[in-house]
């Protein structure tokens, strides 16, 4: 391939991996479905026998499910950050990576949305969360952070999905025009008959800018609202004003790490070096460096304020986190989120894809443990020493946790085979257009 691909190259390269499952893809997909099947079994077991099968130890009733919910919401943060905020800032590295990041966002939020349903136990009453007219005149409490969360997550999912779909329309049209038969017909319906006329592009581009503008505050708000699930409670270890920025930084940190985890293998497998390369990965690594430092600062200040408050209950939680039953959770978190990412300060590491991929995995692990550290250790060590317990997840909870990863990867694996994972039209926008004057000069 030449230094700059042509418009036709872009179509060919990005559409090429679609519809043809390779042996590797098929094996991974089947294994993924097997793991998902185990997760579904665990959930059905819980539905059959009740919440007693989870490892809850009163007063700890928020455990792995809420931890994993917050984890997936956090993962879902990076996609819209990359697609909306970086669009408004005209960050060049966004173009190659935003489509896969947006897909990751949608699938992560779909995964997160499972957990309130799993957590409430009686799944068939989950519609109680929504405000709907009913003859008992019952309405949800709009002063509750949990209801704010229902609105925040659903708005985030809806608007991110719309933004994702709108971005896909011209590229689905490209897939349609590269295929025949039933695929052509299906993709023609999916792209709503898009043709790229002047009128269509004009309104499309105006609307795209507005979507980006609407999504930008949403990115910041959604994890702030999630953090208020905790910070608004009179619970030692949670009741802190630094939670919103601390959670947002953590979400961007974990989201960017997950983008790296997914994109590095994609680039290699699909040979997309012309569209996703070290420049994109290094830019994401720099975002991880920045947000990782903010997070490390937040960990430090959280402990400092607990000590400085002179509140024995507050400080007790933090001492327990450092040296109590959950110390291994705390130190795993510090190792994965604060220490290991320091290697990203070396350009050699940032530009070494294998090393970057390994670091991104550690960050993913560390960010799950961070949420577990916040939730489980705080509830297990509240004001009354008589109520101090040790919460240990049951096999059902672990099965559902693992199943949620399989659920997420199932969607992502299907996505890479059914939709263009790199934005075709936007990649072309970054290239020099074909000009006859250039041809004449070259001649």
């Amino acid at each position: 391939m030449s230094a700059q691909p042509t418009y036709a190259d872009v179509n060919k390269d990005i559409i090429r991996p679609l519809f043809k499952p390779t042996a590797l893809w098929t094996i991974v997909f089947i294994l993924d479905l097997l793991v998902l099947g185990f997760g579904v079994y665990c959930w059905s077991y819980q539905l059959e026998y009740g919440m007693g099968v989870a490892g809850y130890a009163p007063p700890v009733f928020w455990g792995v499910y809420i931890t994993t919910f917050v984890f997936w919401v956090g993962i879902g943060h990076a996609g819209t950050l990359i697609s909306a905020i970086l669009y408004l800032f005209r960050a060049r590295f966004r173009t190659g990576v935003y489509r896969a990041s947006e897909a990751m966002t949608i699938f992560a939020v779909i995964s997160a949305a499972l957990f309130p349903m799993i957590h409430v136990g009686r799944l068939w009453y989950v519609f109680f969360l929504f405000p709907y007219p009913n003859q008992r005149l019952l309405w949800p409490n709009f002063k509750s952070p949990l209801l704010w969360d229902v609105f925040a997550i659903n708005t985030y999912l809806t608007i991110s999905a719309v933004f994702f779909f709108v971005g896909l329309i011209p590229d689905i049209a490209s897939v349609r025009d590269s295929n025949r038969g039933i695929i052509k017909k299906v993709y023609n319906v999916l792209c709503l008959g898009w043709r790229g006329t002047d009128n269509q592009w004009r309104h499309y581009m105006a609307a795209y800018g507005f979507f980006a503008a609407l999504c930008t505050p949403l990115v910041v708000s959604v994890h702030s609202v999630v953090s208020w699930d905790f910070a608004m409670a009179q619970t030692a270890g949670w009741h802190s004003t630094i939670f919103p920025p601390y959670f947002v930084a953590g979400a961007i940190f974990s989201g960017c790490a997950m983008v790296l985890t997914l994109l590095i293998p994609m680039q290699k497998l699909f040979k997309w070096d012309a569209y996703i390369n070290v420049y994109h990965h290094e830019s994401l690594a720099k975002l991880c460096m920045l947000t990782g430092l903010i997070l490390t600062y937040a960990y430090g200040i959280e402990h400092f304020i607990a000590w400085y408050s002179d509140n024995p209950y507050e400080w007790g939680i933090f001492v327990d986190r450092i040296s109590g039953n959950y110390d291994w959770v705390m130190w795993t978190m510090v190792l994965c989120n604060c220490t290991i990412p320091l290697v990203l300060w070396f350009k050699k590491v940032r530009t070494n894809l294998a090393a970057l991929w390994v670091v991104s995995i550690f960050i993913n692990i560390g960010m799950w443990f961070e949420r577990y550290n916040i939730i489980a250790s705080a509830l297990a060590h509240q004001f009354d020493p008589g109520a101090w317990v040790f919460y240990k997840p049951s096999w059902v909870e672990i099965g559902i946790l693992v199943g949620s990863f399989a659920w997420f990867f199932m969607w992502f694996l299907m996505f890479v085979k059914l939709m263009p994972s790199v934005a075709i039209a936007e990649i072309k926008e970054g290239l020099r257009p074909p000009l006859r004057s250039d041809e004449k000069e070259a001649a």
Partner: protein
Amino acid sequence: MISYEVVMVTVAAAPVLCIIGAVLAYKVAGTPFAKRTTWDEAAELAGGAGRGPNPNNVKGVFAYLDDLMTAIDRVKKAGYTDFTVISPLPRHEIEDAIYEGKPSPVRWWTMAGGLVGGTGGFTLACLTSAVWPMALPGGKPVVSVPPFVIITFECTVLIGGLITLAAIIYHCRLPSFDLDVECMDPRYSSDHFGLVVHGLEGEKRDDVAKLLNDAGANEVAVAQEA
């Protein structure tokens, strides 16, 4: 205590009133809200795809953007206003050449949607709290503005986004399965640009075909009249 019926009627009426207000403001401001573009008229007149080439259209396919821009310029100077440009990517020079900086009306939809969503969300939170005053955690007032700002914000973004989607569908005339076949060349989504001039008869077709050829079109197609 406010009755259930009052709450429901008010919740339902608030967004409707907002929509009416936004549309009235629109009309008063004189924004060309429902003005149809030449492309829309052409597609409507042509009767849609699947009926073979339209003998009143002349189609030019361009491999180079500068040739396309030359062709647009010459077509406009020759007095033809009913034409469609098709491209695999958005280009500002194409939009500027055709619409001469006139902004898309989508922005009004987004604003109206945001206003409707925000007022609707705030109204919903206020009135449902009023009708269910037992929910008073922490002794907060029935209508407690700070927590309701969150619901207001979320509903602003939600409805603003959904209405913007509706705006794309309306203004882009989606789904657009009934375009002229001349606008549906698969090369347009890859690496070629198209310029289709509509509503031509007799010698004008040959004039436009020559004009497109001279501008550097790779291919010019003129359907035979039946």
